[in-house]
């Protein structure tokens, strides 16, 4: 949301930083001055940020927000991959500039480059948080921005916690201020839990907290995929006996499941078009697994592939102009790309066994799973150049799904001995386990930013 009247400073900063994270970007900044070298001593490659306990300006903090928000938002900043959160026990008193300076001085001595301080106004039905950012690399610790956030106080449920959502929004905005790209903390993941034969779909915050079941049909549920408006999830289920395609609405408990496709044969591998109007999917109703596009509103079907081999796992380019997919028409399964109407099929990957393509929201990369004894995640350009591994040497790693920033990926790995969901950055670094449940956790899907 850029409608906010950000001060001139940050408008300038945001403009100046656009593209900082675009891979791989040339060095476009001049050499850092000495002061930063001093501050960053110790080999840190991130912006060190301090987030002391928030200060309650008005009201009673019965919900424990003053501690909770900095904790949740701090973890979000860590997961963003751009920040290192500086630990410290200092509290910031209200309306005491000298004490605030002392707190920042202590954090600066501990290596912090920036500080974020929140002021909470707590009412029975609403909470307002003003978050002020300070530059701790200057001796005067000047303020560099202030933003206000507010949230309605609503009953907590396993699927929704307004306190965590407020913290996620604050973190996403801090990421925006310093990098030029909004963070991805205010998102959800959906994934499959359970062993073979008994798989149900759950939804959780992107960091794995707050797991809530969204299917409970006792059947086999597979391949959850968020719609572009983040309000529904398409999935394959055997709930009616055969592998059919459905859609559920995780935030609308009274809304039933919608059947999307229940043809003879398989109805699988849903992929939403970027405009949310259509789904690419796999049907075998005409005798062989082929890729079709289903217009959700009308139910109209368009067949895209006509080949005697398996064609499945479509994934749209962010422009909606192309679709990548898996075909075994060249022997073992490989990644192919075609136009939206099925024309101009070209092979993207060559030797190997390749499945699970997912086109990056930035458009320039396709992630896929390569079978090489175990499975590992690789990326390649849509033109078929520069294939490179993201994972290796740590069990099976597969089923990737992009975060809306095109910079983070969520995937499943059995590196711990059991399937769990992990996230990492596009360069394969900063891998973090985000599910810890007792059952297998597989097939993650990262939602778009929440409405």
């Amino acid at each position, binding site marked *: 949301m850029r409608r906010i009247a950000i001060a001139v400073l940050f408008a300038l900063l945001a403009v100046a930083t656009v593209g900082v994270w675009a891979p791989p970007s040339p060095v476009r900044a001049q050499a850092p001055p000495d002061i930063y070298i001093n501050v960053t001593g110790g080999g840190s490659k991130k912006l060190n940020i301090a987030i002391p306990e928030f200060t309650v300006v008005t009201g009673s903090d019965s919900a424990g927000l003053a501690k909770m928000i900095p904790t949740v938002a701090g973890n979000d900043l860590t997961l963003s991959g751009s920040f290192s959160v500086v630990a410290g026990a200092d509290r910031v008193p209200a309306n005491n500039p000298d004490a605030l300076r002392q707190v920042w001085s202590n954090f600066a001595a501990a290596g912090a480059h920036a500080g974020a301080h929140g002021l909470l106004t707590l009412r029975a039905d609403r909470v307002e948080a003003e978050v002020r950012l300070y*530059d701790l690399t200057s001796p005067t610790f000047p303020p560099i921005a202030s933003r206000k956030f507010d949230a309605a106080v609503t009953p907590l449920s396993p699927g929704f916690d307004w306190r965590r959502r407020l913290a996620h929004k604050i973190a996403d905005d801090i990421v925006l201020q310093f990098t030029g790209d909004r963070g991805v903390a205010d998102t959800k993941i959906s994934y499959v839990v359970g062993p073979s034969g008994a798989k149900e779909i759950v939804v959780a915050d992107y960091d794995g907290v707050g797991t809530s079941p969204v299917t409970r049909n006792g059947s086999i549920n597979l391949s959850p995929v968020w719609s572009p408006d983040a309000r529904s999830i398409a999935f394959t289920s055997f709930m009616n*006996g055969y592998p059919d395609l459905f859609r559920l609405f995780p935030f609308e408990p009274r809304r039933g499941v919608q059947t999307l496709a229940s043809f003879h044969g398989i109805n699988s591998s849903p992929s939403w078009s970027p405009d949310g109007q259509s789904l690419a999917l796999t049907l075998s109703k005409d005798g062989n697994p082929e890729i079709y596009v289903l217009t959700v509103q009308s139910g109209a079907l368009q067949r895209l592939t006509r080949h005697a081999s*398996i064609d499945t796992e479509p994934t749209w380019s962010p422009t909606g102009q192309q679709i990548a997919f898996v075909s075994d028409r060249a022997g073992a399964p490989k990644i192919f790309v075609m136009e939206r109407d099925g024309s101009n099929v070209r092979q993207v990957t060559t030797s190997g066994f390749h499945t699970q393509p997912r086109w990056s929201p930035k458009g320039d990369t396709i992630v896929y799973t390569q079978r090489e004894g175990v499975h590992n995640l690789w990326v390649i350009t849509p033109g078929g150049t520069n294939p490179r591994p993201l994972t290796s040497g740590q069990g099976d790693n597969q089923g990737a799904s992009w975060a809306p920033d095109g910079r983070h990926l969520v995937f499943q790995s059995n590196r711990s001995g059991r399937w769990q969901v992990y996230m990492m950055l596009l360069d394969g670094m900063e891998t973090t386990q985000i599910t810890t449940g007792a059952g297998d956790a597989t097939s993650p899907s990262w939602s778009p930013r929440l409405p």
Partner: protein
Amino acid sequence: MVTRAAQVTMLSLLLAGLVITGCAKRPATTASTAAAPAPAPSAAPAPVPPSASAPSSGGAAAAAPAAGAAAAAPQTPRPVPKEFMAVAALKEVHFDFDKYDIRAEDAKTLDANAAWLKSNADNLVLIEGHCDERGTNEYNLALGERRAKATMNYLVSQGIQANRITIISYGEERPVCNEKTEACWAKNRRANFLVKPR
């Protein structure tokens, strides 16, 4: 890991901030209320499809017929898989890794299955296609479909009426063996047969 280039960029941007705030002297406070976190997405009233059944709270409990014309429904009713039962006379067949062609030894098994089906003509047959856990779920769903279809095609070539046969793929979702060994995977790469009276 943040690249060196990004680090340099970020830090020099921070410096840029210093320079500018040095002139501004005051917090760049916004006047407007920023990015008000929306209430729970569930707060958004959404149209409930008239045909939707009422599931238990929090999730999809039952499939409802699709709203409008979105449901792409089968052209003819499909038999209920649960109504089919295994019979000892019909033996399963197996497949090589990532293959769906009928092997020579399995053709003999299918010949025997075809003979049984001919002499038990009052039975419908459900062919299940399965995969081992290697490969990935979605691809294996398609692979299992091809195995079931190849098996069906063989039976049809031996004179079994296609309209007696239904196929279903379970992909890798219903293994009969759970060890991570080739012997176990070989057992899971299969097509098996269930029957029910017409």
